[in-house]
């Protein structure tokens, strides 16, 4: 069995046996794509009582290389409003690109995204949303994101 499936198997049992508040596995039937539902636990009016769905895609190079992570739309699952989240679900977050390290896990990435939402009070998309979404690659990992505003 390749190494990455062993690692993901361990991560999955952690996520199920010891789930973080507001983070739950919606679907994980194979070692290719997982869907994780997240909620923002404080009373941030932008996200209160909403649930969002993250899609993780893995390759055999995981966790040496980052998984591909984005929000997806589904019934009752919108793309959260955030100045670093594009309307196609792509997320501009350091830990998913150059800040990735093999010690990160699906759980820790989910928590980073959860806290990125919790700390936001701006009901807006990135300034280049329309242009980016019109020409975005299928995989957000093909994008070299420019960090618009480090203060968000």
């Amino acid at each position, binding site marked *: 069995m390749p*190494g990455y499936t062993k690692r993901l198997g361990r991560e999955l049992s952690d996520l199920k046996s010891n789930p973080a508040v507001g983070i739950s596995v919606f679907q994980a039937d194979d070692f290719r794509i997982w869907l994780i539902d997240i909620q923002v636990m404080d009373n941030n009016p932008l996200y209160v009582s909403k649930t969002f769905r993250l899609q993780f895609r893995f390759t055999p190079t995981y966790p040496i290389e980052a998984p591909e992570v984005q929000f997806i739309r589904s019934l009752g699952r919108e793309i959260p409003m955030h100045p670093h989240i594009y309307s196609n679900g792509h997320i501009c977050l350091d830990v998913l690109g*150059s800040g990735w390290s*093999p*010690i990160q*896990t699906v759980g820790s990435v989910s928590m980073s995204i959860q806290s990125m939402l919790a700390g936001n009070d701006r009901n807006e998309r990135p300034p280049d949303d329309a242009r980016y979404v019109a020409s975005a690659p*299928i995989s957000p990992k093909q994008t070299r994101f420019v960090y618009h505003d480090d203060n968000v």
Partner: protein
Amino acid sequence: MVQDGELPTIAVEHDPDQLDDLTILRLTQEIKDVEASKNPLVGEFKSISVLLDEYKDATFRSKIKALGGGNAGYRPVRGDGNCAWRAFAFRYFELLSKLSKEEIEASSKFLQSRTGLLDAAGYSETGYIDFVEETFNLFQKLPDITPEQLVSEFNNAEVSSAIIVHFRLLAAAYIKTHSGDYLPFIDDGEGADISEYCNRNIEAFSVEADHLALSALVNSMTTVDLGVVYMDRSAGEEAVVHNFFPAESAAEVDPPLLKIDLLYRPGHYDIFYK
């Protein structure tokens, strides 16, 4: 198979806008395979005279000559951002492989005990265990391993990458658990974040080791003295050598102390043999 001097033609067949993820993955792998066939992760030992032939510059030539003749040499390591780590790790196991079974056993036990650093730094076992296990799998094979087998183990990317991550985490964990010692060197005047420094410079794969990283690696292992020979254009007949000694000595424990030498040329590390 792409021959030398011939550019890979694989990318030309595809319209970049039409590439799906699997194709991108396959093409990326093909490029990596071509690179790997030309340039192994860990190469064969070469005599110092081979290095001398690479340089016309008088400063370099006098420094290389001063490194010594006879058995002196170097072993090239691929320049992929992990070279210092890979060079260190390979040499660590190469030196161990020449020791007795008992000494290898003692070294293994001692390094196992350092896993406590990872817990103290707050890393999750799920996150680190596979990498640590790969290191100790190799320890198991050491007593009977041949030099060729060791090179081949390190040219298996999965094995070598895992050991590098293990060593990176040990170094980062040492900094995190001794932040007072490192903070003055990390602080850029705008307030330093130890955790972010470790993430960007040490934990992240393929980011080259800086001076602090090497110092932390040596401190985290405690059984290795590291010497780095700086082969650069600075004035002088002889290359400057920076020595890294562990802050806490392992003198009271069983494992033998190892001496690793690296050869630094601007932007790249290889293994140096005196």
